[in-house]
């Protein structure tokens, strides 16, 4: 059997025997810096804008809804089942479809939609990153198939960076089968190193902090 064959070869090469515990691993290196809420928002927006992301600070849920409304304006959108979107009234905007729980229906809707609207489980201030776990609230396709992605994040979900995230979510697979870090719009530089946005994923990303 290939499995035993390969493991045997590995053990022989290393001079190890089956079941022997490893020497202690180097301790994880996680550095979480102090940063107040305002500084986090400022850093998140600065990083996103550097990547050509659009940012908006909504003073209220109504403001978040207005932003979404003007973005969708006459176009079609699919919104995730994130409670925050419903609370903001975004899911009931004209042109916005939501409440998908069937994969094939969602796929068809996302493939045709102009805008995908999601929440975000966290955002990372230092890199301008959105962090999303796959769940009944968030599907993977909504932030992926439509050419424009709008994410609505609540203010207290902004972390300093990757180190803080991995402190809070040390073993991702305990929570979900899929998590994704999204840092700016989809891009490529495969032809002559010339930057082009929106290859396969959304070419436009909007982040609203409520």
């Amino acid at each position, binding site marked *: 059997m290939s499995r035993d064959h390969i493991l045997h070869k590995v053990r022989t090469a*290393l001079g190890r025997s089956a079941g022997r515990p490893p020497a202690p691993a180097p301790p994880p290196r996680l550095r979480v810096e102090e940063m107040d809420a305002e500084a986090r928002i400022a850093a998140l927006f600065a990083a996103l804008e550097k990547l050509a992301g659009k940012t908006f600070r909504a003073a209220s849920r109504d403001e978040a809804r207005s932003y979404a409304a003007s973005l969708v304006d006459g176009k079609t959108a699919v919104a995730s089942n994130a409670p925050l979107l419903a609370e903001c009234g975004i899911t009931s905007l004209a042109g916005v479809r939501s409440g998908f729980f069937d994969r094939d229906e969602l796929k068809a809707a996302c493939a045709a939609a102009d805008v995908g609207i999601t929440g975000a489980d966290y955002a990372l201030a230092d890199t301008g990153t959105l962090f999303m776990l796959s769940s009944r609230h968030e599907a993977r396709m909504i932030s992926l198939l439509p050419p424009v992605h709008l994410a609505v994040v609540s203010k207290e979900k902004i972390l300093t960076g990757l180190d803080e995230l991995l402190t809070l979510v040390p073993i991702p697979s305990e929570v979900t089968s899929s998590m994704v870090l999204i840092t700016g*719009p989809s891009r490529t530089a495969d032809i002559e190193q010339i930057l082009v946005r929106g290859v396969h994923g959304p070419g436009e990303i909007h982040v609203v902090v409520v």
Partner: protein
Amino acid sequence: MTLIAPEQIQRTLANPSLQQAIYASTGRLVEKRRAAVAAEALPDYQELREQARLIKQHTLENLDHYLEQLESNVRAHGGEVIWCRDGADVVEFLAGLAGRKQARLIVKSKSMTTEEIDLNERLQHHDLETLETDLGEYIIQLAREKPYHIVAPALHMTRYEVAEIFSRRLGVASETVPENQTKIARAVLREKFLAADIGVSGANFLVADSGAVVLVENEGNARLSTTLPKVHVALAGIEKVIPRAQDLAVLLKLLGRSATGQALTVYTSILSGPRRAGEIDGPDEFYLVLLDNGRARLLADREKRESLSCIRCGACLNHCPVYRKIGGHSYPWVYSGPIGAIITPQFQGTTSNPWLPFASSLCGACAEVCPVKIDIPKLLLMLRSEVTKAGQREGRNRLERLGFRLWAWIMRHPRLYEMSGMLASALTPEENGGWLGRVPALLNRGPLKAWLSHRDLPPVASKSFRQRWRARRKAGGA
């Protein structure tokens, strides 16, 4: 031993626009990396490198343990682990899986490991269409070429060549603007994504404590490949495992910056198994294919083991004065540049491409920029020594050894040394701007010809130091 490298090198050197393309593209990547790891951007860069090296070294030293831990965690989340000794095992598994699923179309995201085993070509024999979806890989596949660079597969192509390939293979009107070329590819590939039966990805990291595959990309094609088809197969070499998800805090910071100067690439996916109850989308089935293909053998040597730490950022290629001249297609295998020069001989045998470890000036730029601190020059020297020893065993290098013996003998006899100097001076043709420029026809043959074809020497002085010294004393000076 012959030091004559393949003709491809001569062709690359003789093509000015290709030289310009390689130099410009790698140069831009060098600049981006430099800014991203500068002290003001990443003050703890050196600490991160050291931690990354320690993590990789520790994992390799205990690889069997982490592979078993990884396997049990993948299974716990509903995935299957397939162990493959070589490419044939992988093809057998995938062809069988496609048969069971009645699958015809496979979408692929970028994976050097699949290139290593010629997966696309081999699956074609099983009537399976496998489509590369990374833009650079897609162009390369349409052109029926091999990737030119670990990170930027179409680095050597101009937009005009891309236009020509697109019109020829896709039947579209000639389009030379990269933005529009990208749109063409997006439209064609989007249809394929929506129709594909199986998605095949590589893996940048395998996380033992989570049973997870980590994929790093900028375009979104890896997300599409692993989200839309109902079956996801991830293929990775056994050396890709890391102990904990928390180690990603170190490795992700280094990978993006070293490769393209990005703090994080646009998408980082951490995937563990098929979709779970309640999750709306994602694949129903997940398979992790663990490939050996010669890796286990490399573990035996404590020092050479280091070469399995590579995280495929491509920084050593961009900084290598040799890669930047001879380009990615001059190397004998899919792994090019300094990392290719140390991996290829270890996978394919030291004597299969004996010139490879010698194709380096040992300037050390590769080791300096390596995010996991692989000492590439040291490994090149070890491999050179192996090539030479293998040559001696086979009775080769006789001429070279004879030459060195003769040299040693002359050096021990001052009279002979002086006479040989005078002879060399007499035979030296006229100098040309301080250099020989050409050598006497008598010398310009055999291995010496190859050696002199890209090198020059200053002419031998008409009078040696000893002659001048004697003349000076005779003249009654000092």
